[in-house]
């Protein structure tokens, strides 16, 4: 009898464990695979990542421009930054003209950093002027214009009215790339990289009014909100959190033999081990709860 009471006390003790013990366990299962990484197969999701990759692959020559709305911020950088970098690498490999803008001020620094990183990767490898990525010819960074609804609607009418100058203060109409790009009519797709509902805003205002395709790169926490729009065909593919970014990195690497750093893939082994640890802790927590309840019922508490 005394032995049984001792076992029941263990359940109670486990339920009351200091949360800092759990933090240490989670930190360890995260850090060890980062220091000693191991390869896990990355399975590409057909409906989401592959669909977006295919859409970029099938970009028509007559509308060879994509608008990237880079609305990432430091707090969602580990998920969204690798997506933006992979999408830029893919676009530049395919020589798609990229027009980028931010709808929030705190996105400007990270968006510019992503462009600088990818452009220097391409230019370091380039041997001819054709292979280089040149500002104004291959991409233009429009910068930021608040509130979000103004550029979203304004770009459907005339880009130059909303952004007379680019992020660096140059006259937009003097950029060679812009001679054939005046509004959404001259683009094939909008890629909204955001941690909030901005992709839905693009669907509601830009797609419904101007008929342009919209795709999204979103954080895992908000993915569930976008599935209905994916199912209805309003979103053309989607990158879901760090997992989706790793899938996109894999697709770009396989297609173009791109050997640059794959930031999202670096975190995949740590993500798997942490998920296993959390699943085990959820199961353990529930077992402890039910065993403790059973013990109390038997004692008639």
């Amino acid at each position, binding site marked *: 009898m005394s032995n049984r009471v001792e076992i029941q006390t263990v359940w109670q003790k486990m339920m009351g464990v200091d949360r800092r013990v759990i933090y240490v366990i989670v930190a360890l299962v995260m850090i060890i695979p980062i220091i000693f990484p191991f390869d896990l197969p990355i399975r590409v999701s057909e409906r989401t990542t592959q669909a977006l990759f295919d859409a970029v692959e099938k970009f028509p020559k007559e509308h060879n421009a994509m608008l990237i709305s880079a609305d990432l911020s430091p707090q969602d950088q580990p998920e969204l930054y690798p997506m933006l970098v992979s999408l830029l690498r893919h676009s530049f490999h395919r020589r798609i003209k990229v027009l980028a803008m931010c709808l929030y001020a705190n996105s400007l620094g990270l968006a510019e950093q992503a462009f600088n990183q990818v452009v220097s990767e391409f230019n370091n490898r380039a041997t001819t002027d054709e292979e280089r990525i040149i500002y104004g010819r291959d991409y233009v960074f429009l910068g930021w214009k608040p509130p979000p609804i103004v550029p979203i609607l304004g770009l459907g009418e005339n880009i130059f009215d909303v952004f007379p100058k680019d992020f660096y203060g140059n006259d937009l109409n003097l950029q060679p790339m812009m001679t054939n790009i005046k509004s959404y009519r001259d683009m094939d797709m909008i890629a909204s990289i955001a941690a909030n509902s901005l992709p839905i805003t693009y669907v*509601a205002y830009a797609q419904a009014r101007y008929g342009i395709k919209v795709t999204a790169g979103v954080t895992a926490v908000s*993915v569930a909100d976008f599935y209905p729009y994916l199912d209805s065909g309003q979103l053309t593919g989607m990158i879901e*959190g760090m997992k989706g970014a790793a899938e996109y990195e894999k697709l770009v690497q396989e297609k173009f033999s791109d050997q640059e750093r794959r930031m999202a893939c670096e*975190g995949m082994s740590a993500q798997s081990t942490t998920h296993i640890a959390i699943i085990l802790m959820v199961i353990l927590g529930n077992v402890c709860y039910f065993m403790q309840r059973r013990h109390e019922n038997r004692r008639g508490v």
Partner: protein
Amino acid sequence: MNIATEFWTWNAAILTIAIFSFLWRDNPLYRIAEHLYIGVANGYSITLTYFNVVVPMMIDPLVNAGKMVKQDGFSTAVLNPFNDANFFIILPMMVGALYITRFIPKISWMVRIPIGLTMGYYTAISIPASFEAGILRQLEASIVTRAQLAEFWPGFWTIVILLSTLATLIYFFFSTEQKGVLRPISNFGILMVMIGFGASFGLTVMARISLAIGRFIFLFKDWLGVVS
């Protein structure tokens, strides 16, 4: 081990550790990092707003219009809101300035003017857009067509979506008591809602883990250089 030598990498690493220290307990190091973040973020936003909005959209048109009048004399062109140089901008500026009346009790009612204008604009612009994208297209997507049933799994999931949509709508239909045939349908609806919540929780965990992993990669790879 290839530890970083750049000042800003060290700066970011120390601030990351300072923020993580809150997991142990609240402490002065965490407070410093927190206040620094808020201060820098606000300062950055205010500066960008000033140079990207206030100067090009408010100050420049007025200054340019003033120069035009001084050079060529007054003309109706400086009242045209579509010109780069115009005095018309004073009107929306005055309406915007009415927000400040909130702090003057006698005329605080005037704050309703800019609030009313803003609400009216956004309501008018968002109702048709939300209706089209969020209701009509979603309704259209829930219709089962013969083409969707051509293959087993896509057809199966289409039917699941249709049934769960109907059941969830019935669960949230409060105008009549849910008994008889409505009861099992409503129970199926709540089951679907619970599965949805579970999926959202799982995705939230995945997102938070990703953020922590991002920081640990920064600390161990970019800062300490212990990962090749």
